[in-house]
């Protein structure tokens, strides 16, 4: 068959048609010529004649002119709409979304890694934010929380900057309620108090709040079941013992039984009738710790501890925090002014109790967290939010790096689009739609991660308070947070790659071969700086974790000043069983006597304070040093103790004598102090024989002994003053039993319990803590902190290593040809390995250097929260750096090894 195509091609040469179009035309025309040729042959001509005839027919024609006219009018090839600048925003958006989804589906590996990486980052943020939201930002579970104000007693003359607020006395609260015009309703509530609840034969410890009858109405709470207090039920002291139980208590302690209404329970041995169940999620107005049940204020005397039993009659007993609902149109400051006027009148009328005192109002949501707790929580929250923010940044920069790598592979696609007339803004928009879509998908997954993480975190809370701690819950804030984070995430990691891609130089990109595409210096340097940043941030997190870990480790080694080994404490509330004073005192004595005979028990004593749960009281007066201003009042831990306390606790005795049987009521009042107090108030003197007066007591006590200082409030605290007074001179109905055993206390607990049961079977003894458990509890918060820091630190490390691995693997792949040439020229495997490793590890070392500097700076800021560890603790710094370097080494080694195994022949052939 003659070769027509050559001939036609010659004729078309001047047209400059697109190659595919040209081929089509040539094929069609040559088919025509071939048909003509066959026809002439069929008519009997020789092949040469036929060939000549066909050629001449082609030669006569002005094909070129005709085709030129035709092809010039050809419309452009059909192009997908999404690529052109199509006016309408929303049509464009829908197309963008569809296109983005298609692009993500096309690269499932990339999409999965990116979504997972981001979801981990977003999940960490969600978990932390859910908790922060619950404790710090959460609107209280009440109606129109912004209308509610907390009312407290405050000093008329401020002694310091911090707001020193205390509860109101019941009588003052009542006066405020009757005289104020600012509140439509004013209620009062106590802090949760531990009570003994017996329903049937069992006894348990529960927490109760004493509240005025209008408590639930003021807060706008509706019962889940039954009803709340009626006005009559809170009118006469001690008359109507009714109780409202919380939802968690109803579920946990009564199994959610619908028949709980009308049931009788005993609180401190007094029968109360259950009239209602509070709604789910309402645990009082404290942001963290809530009660199991609520008792009307008229029952205060029956349930409150001895010191507060005059709460309804004495203006000096400060028990109730006020919560008022502002009338519409009344501002907080107007209400404050109104109540202050009443406070002045009350001060004039009852100077004994109200001297120097006024009233302080603040939003109830602010009062939901005690001032001292707020600072700790704020610090913890800010620290945690910063940490998870960094984790998310690492995840973002990982994905940004992935996108940069992918953008290089898509250079040709993008160049084609620019060539077809897509504007730069249009391209950026398309690329950003992709990254925002990725962000949103990650947000959905991250939300579930976060929720799971939060539940997990919360499952580590101390079991004994599980029902009383407010549960973290999801609300609109959390959803909004996740949405915003997801959108921003998409923009943050998408913007740099998108802007960069949209600047693709068209001609060069089109000429490039796909394999070598986009190895521009600036692209690599952007990726590298992201990587250095990741390494630095990961290191900062690891170092911070290490610092806190070391700090907790040190805290475990702290000797609190007493021996924790073989020590057990029992929390008993004999007074709550309705014992009178004589019987309680007899009980204390009986327990001591009987336990002393149990084999294996070395020593037994009673004390009012739990170890590491004491709090200093102010108002101690030293004889001869009385003239002190209110702000310089002496504060000291005060503990009431029984005989043998110091030997039971193994606290060293420094001088004087211990308490004896003779230090009883009627005898000369005595006290024992610690050496901190001695050194502080009688420096260079002998404190023995000196006298001091405790707050709320009239007589002066003579100091008869000095003991060594221990930790009273927290482990490793700054030394505090402490005064011990004998139980026989300072009766208390709630004492803690201390038992020192000769061996492992766990085996002794049962025999101690049975001895106590022999004395009174009704007494609940379920709260038993060994000395080691006391330490554990004291360190619970710190350990939780380290755990959380550790999890996030290693999450950051993991993400950074994935990033490092990714960029190394990508760069090795890009350099296959170069490596091939090197190896062809004689470079050995080892030298290639070294080359790649050096390249990667240089970045890592830069990151580590920056990270170390940042860590030291951050460590300084955190130093007051660290115990026994400096900000530049060498062990933490080197340890964290080593961990990071090892992981980074591995992340670099794998791609480097692959590079060193490149077969030069194959690598060179590929290009």
């Amino acid at each position: 068959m003659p070769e027509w195509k050559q001939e036609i091609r010659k004729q078309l040469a001047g047209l400059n048609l697109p190659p595919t179009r040209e081929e089509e035309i040539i094929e069609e025309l040559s088919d025509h010529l071939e048909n003509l040729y066959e026809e002439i042959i069929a008519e009997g001509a020789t092949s040469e004649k036929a060939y000549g005839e066909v050629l001449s027919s082609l030669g006569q024609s002005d094909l070129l002119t005709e085709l030129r006219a035709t092809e010039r009018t050809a419309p452009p090839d059909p192009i997908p709409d999404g690529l052109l600048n199509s006016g309408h925003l929303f049509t464009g958006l829908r197309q963008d979304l569809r296109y983005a989804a298609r692009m993500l589906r096309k690269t499932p590996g990339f999409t999965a890694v990116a979504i997972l990486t981001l979801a981990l980052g977003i999940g960490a943020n969600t978990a932390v934010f859910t908790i922060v939201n619950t404790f710090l930002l959460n609107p209280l579970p009440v109606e129109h929380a912004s209308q509610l104000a907390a009312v407290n007693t405050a000093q008329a003359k401020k002694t310091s900057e911090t707001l020193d607020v205390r509860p109101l006395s019941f009588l003052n609260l009542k006066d405020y309620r009757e005289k104020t015009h600012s509140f439509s309703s004013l209620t009062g509530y106590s802090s949760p108090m531990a009570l003994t609840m017996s329903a049937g034969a069992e006894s348990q410890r529960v927490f109760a709040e004493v509240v005025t009858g209008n408590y639930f109405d003021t807060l706008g709470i509706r019962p889940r079941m039954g009803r709340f207090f009626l006005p009559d039920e809170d009118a006469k002291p001690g008359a109507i013992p009714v109780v409202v139980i919380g939802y968690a208590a109803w579920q946990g302690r009564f199994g959610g039984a619908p028949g709980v209404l009308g049931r009788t329970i005993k609180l401190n041995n007094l029968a109360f009738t259950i009239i209602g169940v509070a709604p789910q999620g309402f645990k009082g107005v404290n942001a963290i710790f809530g009660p199991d049940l609520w008792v009307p204020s008229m029952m205060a005397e029956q349930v409150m501890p001895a010191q507060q039993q005059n709460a309804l009659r004495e203006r000096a007993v400060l028990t109730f925090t006020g919560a008022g609902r502002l009338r519409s149109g009344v501002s907080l400051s107007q209400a404050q002014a109104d109540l202050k006027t009443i406070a002045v009148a009350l001060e004039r009328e009852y100077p004994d109790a109200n001297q120097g005192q006024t009233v302080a109002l603040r939003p109830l949501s602010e009062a939901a967290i005690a001032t001292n707790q707020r600072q700790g929580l704020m610090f913890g929250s800010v620290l945690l939010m910063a940490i998870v923010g960094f984790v998310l940044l690492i995840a973002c920069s990982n994905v940004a790096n992935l996108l940069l790598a992918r953008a290089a592979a898509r250079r040709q696609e993008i160049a084609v689009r620019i060539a077809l007339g897509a504007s730069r803004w249009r391209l950026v928009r398309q690329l950003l739609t992709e990254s925002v879509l990725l962000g949103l998908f990650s947000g959905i997954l991250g939300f579930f991660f976060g929720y799971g993480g939060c539940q997990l975190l919360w499952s580590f809370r101390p079991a004994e308070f599980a029902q009383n701690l407010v549960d973290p819950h999801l609300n609109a804030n959390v959803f909004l947070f996740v949405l915003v984070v997801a959108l921003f995430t998409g923009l943050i990691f998408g913007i740099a790659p998108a802007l960069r891609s949209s600047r693709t130089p068209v001609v060069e990109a089109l000429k490039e071969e796909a394999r070598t595409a986009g190895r521009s210096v600036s692209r690599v340097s952007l990726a590298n700086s992201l990587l250095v940043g990741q390494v630095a941030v990961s290191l900062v997190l690891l170092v911070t974790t290490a610092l806190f870990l070391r700090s907790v480790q040190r805290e475990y080694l702290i000797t609190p000043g007493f021996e924790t080994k073989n020590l057990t404490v029992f929390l008993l509330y004999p007074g709550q069983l309705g014992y009178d004073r004589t019987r309680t005192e007899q009980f204390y004595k009986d327990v001591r006597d009987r336990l002393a005979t149990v084999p294996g028990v070395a020593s037994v004593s009673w004390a009012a304070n739990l170890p590491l749960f004491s709090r200093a009281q102010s108002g101690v007066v030293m004889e001869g040093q009385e003239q002190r201003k209110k702000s310089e009042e002496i504060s000291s831990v005060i503990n009431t103790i029984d005989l043998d306390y110091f030997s039971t606790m193994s606290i060293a005795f420094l001088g004087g004598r211990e308490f004896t049987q003779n230090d009883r009521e009627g005898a000369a009042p005595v006290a024992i102090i610690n050496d901190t107090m001695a050194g502080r108030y009688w420096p260079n003197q002998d404190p023995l024989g000196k006298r001091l007066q405790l707050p709320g007591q009239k007589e002066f006590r003579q100091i008869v002994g000095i003991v060594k200082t221990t930790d009273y409030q927290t482990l490793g605290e700054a030394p505090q003053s402490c005064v011990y007074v004998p139980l026989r001179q300072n009766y208390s109905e709630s004492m803690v039993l201390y038992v020192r055993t000769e061996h492992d206390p766990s085996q002794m607990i049962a025999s101690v319990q049975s001895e106590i049961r022999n004395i009174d079977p009704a007494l609940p003894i379920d709260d038993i803590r060994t000395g080691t458990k006391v330490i554990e509890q004291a360190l619970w918060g710190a350990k939780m902190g380290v755990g959380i820091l550790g999890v996030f630190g290693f999450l950051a490390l993991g993400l950074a290593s994935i990033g490092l691995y990714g960029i190394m693997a990508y760069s090795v792949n890009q350099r296959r040809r170069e490596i091939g040439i090197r190896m062809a020229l004689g470079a050995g495997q080892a030298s290639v390995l070294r080359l790649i490793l050096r390249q990667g590890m240089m970045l890592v070392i830069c990151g580590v250097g920056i990270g170390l500097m940042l860590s030291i700076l951050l460590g300084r800021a955190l130093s007051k929260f660290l115990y026994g560890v400096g900000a530049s603790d060498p062990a933490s710094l080197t340890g964290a750096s080593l961990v990071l370097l090892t992981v980074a080494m591995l992340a670099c080694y794998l791609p480097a090894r692959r590079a060193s195994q490149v077969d030069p022949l194959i690598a060179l052939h590929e290009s």
Partner: protein
Amino acid sequence: MGASLDQEWKKGSAELLILSLLEDQPRHGYDIGKLIEGRSGGKLRFHIASLYPLLYRLENRGLIQGRWVEKPNQRRRRYYRLTTQGQKTLAQQRQSWREFVRAVSQITGVEHA
């Protein structure tokens, strides 16, 4: 009529001829050329340089559509078919052709051109 007629008529009516031939079935370019020559008794003849550019123009205007078809034991060939728009255009052109012929007949007194 002769050779001059060939030139004249081709310009005015070539489109109508091609569209009419494609009305019943898709055809390839050589087939179209042969049919015009055969049915006109050799009086109308399309040269390769005018037939194909005309086909491409019709295709560009969306009146016909070409498609490569491969049949067993045959070369790949490009078949053209009439599009919906092509059908409409064909109807219009037929109508105006009839009117034109009628007008010419009335003036010249020649029936059946």
